[in-house]
């Protein structure tokens, strides 16, 4: 994995963390749960594990220009 790949992975994880765990929550009777959201959360946890692995392998993730996903 080169620097750009690693940097992009971090950005994607940061995006998923925000989209899935942050933001306005519209709660109440009118909100509908329509799908297996739990599966999605599981997927994100697995991805976070790979970030740990990435760190352990000491892949360089450079600071630089802020990125948008």
């Amino acid at each position, binding site marked *: 994995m080169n620097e750009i790949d690693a940097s992009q992975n971090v950005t994607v994880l940061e995006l998923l963390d925000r989209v899935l765990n*942050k933001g306005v929550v519209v709660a109440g009777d*009118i909100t509908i749960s329509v799908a297996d959201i739990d599966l999605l959360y599981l997927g994100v946890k697995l991805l976070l594990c790979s970030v740990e692995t990435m760190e*352990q392998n000491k892949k360089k993730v450079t600071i630089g220009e802020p990125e948008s*996903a």
Partner: protein
Amino acid sequence: MESLKVPDKQMLTCMYAIVDYSAKRLNMRPLYPVAYKEIAAVVETTCKERLAFDQQAAIEYGATLEVLNEKFTLLPCRFGTFLQDENAVLQVLQEHYFFYKKKLEELRGKQEFGLKILSEKSVQAHNANNKKQCKDGKEYLLQKFYEYRADEERKRVNQKTVDVIHEELQKLSSMSVKNAEISGHVVFSCNYLVEKKTESFFCSKVEALQGMYPELKFLLTGPWPPYNFVAEN
């Protein structure tokens, strides 16, 4: 959230964001606004069977919010916010109008940056220690003790350093939210709300701080829509 069994053919309204709709108009089909006074919810109506709930869908949702963020002051909604129809959306806007309005005013002209700081020393020390072979149990326990002591010292020094860094960055931001849950080699994680006009200064400051503390690894991401600054509490 209440779980309802929804037929595959049923149409649902997905809420992307709540925006300040007083000045600009939305032109991003298939998205459209459901307006209430000077705020609006940006929504999309779609059939349940066409919805995707995988990583790609979440990434695309985030990308849409970023495009919206370029044009509007917005409160991003969490991925997977579905309502029955436009009337339900309108009801949400009416019920929370004052809160949304106040938040939009607070966030006008500001964006979020995320900063994570990793300690490279911890990684190196950990790897180096793993290579040592112990002759007996006593040596092993002693090694563990020294590792523990060194680790505690590193944590103490890191904490002092990140406190200084955080103080510097707080001066350049309107608000900040620290992430309490940090693990592994991440010694600090925080989100900063930064005015658009001072964004480049903020980034330069982070870069300068990275230069001052080369033993730490800085991960700066952004600008993001203000995901971490819209909580009701």
